[in-house]
């Protein structure tokens, strides 16, 4: 073996080369055809699954539930967080609603708060391998706790850090109960991902009782009801007369990381003096 010049023989004919190129291109083509193309058996399925309907950022249903958070009036009392965590029985270190001190580019301090933003093109919905999370007809991004496998890809994909994984079976007592509210939903089991639901149980029950979410307190999310300064407004974005639509019409608003095209359902009135 020593010192013997080894010759590399690659008996690669032109046909082989064409075959290799065709295989590589073919695999991309197969992926395209199987998932999107007009002949795709999944085409329609995908249309239904990819979040959001029409290009205007609204779902196809007759409602689109949304929220406005006024960062000029928020005083950072964290009542929204507490009412939320009591009503939805959320663990004390895994709040669905967060409130944080922040400041603008010119140094003015304000409080930033964030529920789940219920994106119409939700990155979490797009990546979930089992459709355990989905956008409902009324724009709500929902979780199916019975289907979630706990892979946490949605948590990694969410641009807003809105998702929390349940790392252990909960046995703790919720210290916020009953001062800040009484749990209206079951605790979620160990091993799935959870997040803010816009208090969907209140919306659905309220609608069934003929109430108007955002107007009638029984049909409105707990965080909105409890806010002492009215910094949160809720309602139907498709109804121009809803409180939320009127606030949006009357104020300059922004949505978080709009450049990602997530079409979130939560609008912010930016803090005074923000660039």
């Amino acid at each position: 073996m020593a010192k013997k010049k080894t010759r590399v023989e690659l008996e690669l004919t032109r046909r082989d080369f064409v075959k290799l190129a065709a295989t590589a291109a073919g695999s991309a083509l197969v992926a395209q055809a199987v998932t999107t193309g007009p002949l795709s058996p999944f085409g329609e399925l995908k249309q239904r699954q990819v979040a959001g309907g029409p290009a205007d950022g609204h779902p196809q249903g007759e409602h689109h539930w949304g929220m406005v958070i006024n960062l000029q009036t928020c005083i950072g009392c964290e009542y929204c967080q507490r009412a939320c965590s009591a009503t939805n029985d959320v663990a004390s270190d895994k709040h669905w609603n967060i409130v944080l001190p922040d400041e603008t580019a010119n140094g003015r301090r304000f409080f930033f708060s964030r529920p789940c933003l219920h994106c119409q093109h939700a990155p979490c919905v797009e990546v979930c391998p089992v459709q355990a999370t989905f956008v409902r007809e009324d724009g709500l991004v929902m979780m199916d706790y019975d289907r979630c496998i706990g892979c946490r890809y949605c948590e990694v994909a969410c641009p807003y850090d809105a998702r929390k994984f349940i790392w252990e079976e909960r046995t703790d007592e919720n210290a916020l109960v009953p001062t800040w509210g009484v749990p209206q939903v079951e605790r979620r089991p160990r091993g799935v991902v959870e997040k803010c639901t816009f208090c969907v149980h209140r919306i659905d029950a309220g609608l069934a009782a003929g109430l108007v979410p955002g107007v009638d307190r029984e049909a409105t999310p707990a965080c909105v009801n409890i806010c002492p300064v009215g910094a949160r407004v809720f309602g139907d974005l498709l109804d121009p007369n809803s409180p939320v639509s009127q606030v949006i019409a009357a104020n300059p608003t922004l949505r978080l990381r709009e450049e990602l095209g997530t079409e979130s359902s939560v609008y912010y009135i930016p803090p005074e003096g923000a660039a």
Partner: protein
Amino acid sequence: MTTATRERMAPTFTPGRLAWLGFLAIALTVGALAFYEVFSRGLIVTNLSDSVPWGLWITIDLSAIALGAGAFTLSAVVYLFRLKRFQPIVRLAVLLGVIGYTTALLTLIADIGRPDRFWHPWVYWNVHSVLWEITWCITIYLAIMLVEFAPVIAELRPLLRWPVVGRAAHAIHRLAPALALAGLLISLLHQSSLGATYGVLKARPIWFKPSMPIMFIVSAVAVGPAVTMAVALILEWITGKRNLPHDLLRTIARFAGLGLLVYTYVKLWDLAAVTYYGRTPGSSSAFSLLNEYTAYNFGLWFGEIGLGIVIPVLMFLVPRFNRNPANLVLGGLLAALGLVINRWNVTVSGLIVPLTYSPGVGVQLLPGSYTPSLTEWGVAIGVVGYALLALTLGVWLLPLFKTQPAAHSSGQFDPQGRR
């Protein structure tokens, strides 16, 4: 055939073998305890958190699948491109593929929050999710590898009594080109989709880029065969039997070296584009944070590029190095190590950088931090123990290095038939 079978006696237990089995038993016991801990108490026993929800186990998944890439690469070389002289190594490559993929699946069972629902991706489809596609591809490809491997199992002595087994194995063997084609297609898909898992996340500044799937597939195609080559040489040292001609292994090493160079090209361009030419405020602050909080640059330049690329490329491509099998083994192992470091860097680094979404500018979220817990290491030791045990049993019990069993040879693979 008969002689070959007679050589394959039940393994005798020498002290060395017993010690090795004892070592594996310890690893598997540690793994079993760790798995029990995870299943009984949940993922709270890990050091993962909501800001860093993926860690060591995902790194193992990604690495095991990439290191198993020798299976599809070498199968394609032999059965699609008809480079028949590589046939003797295909069985080993497929065995390593099966081991890699099953190791990944085993680790995933620990990693998902609801292992009882592992079957959900097959029933509830989200065709828009790369993770869904990966789950399907991995399952299908594992099945393909098992079918490819079936003729090897069929040669086991107890099975030779039934002629129907031999005939079935023969029929399967005739399917080899079709299986290799399907394996190549599916592997090209999921090996790159594993990179796309990160590459499609538009909110993450250092992940979101189209080069991610390319770098994953190219590194897997380069390193997978190198690992197969290194394992073949190590087995030769242990068993004292030269099963494969060395010039064959050296050709594979050369291929791996060239593959690593292609990978380097893509990787350096990616680096230049992300950190210099196409720099954004997001990616700049992400990299400075990473270097402040982790040894990112060290891992990249010393681990991934120095150990994982430069040394293996020298060992594989420079004639005076690649004549020595020890250098080829060193290169193969270092390339594998570099790939593991890369998968770790990709997974953890992207998560350490906190998301920014507030309309303000104040630092609101701290960078994530993550060091695997003892239980996580326990599971890691267990799955590596499983992989080594599977390899050991495969080498002891299976006819891995028989080229073309007499009963199975047919005109099908004769290149004269088509040239």
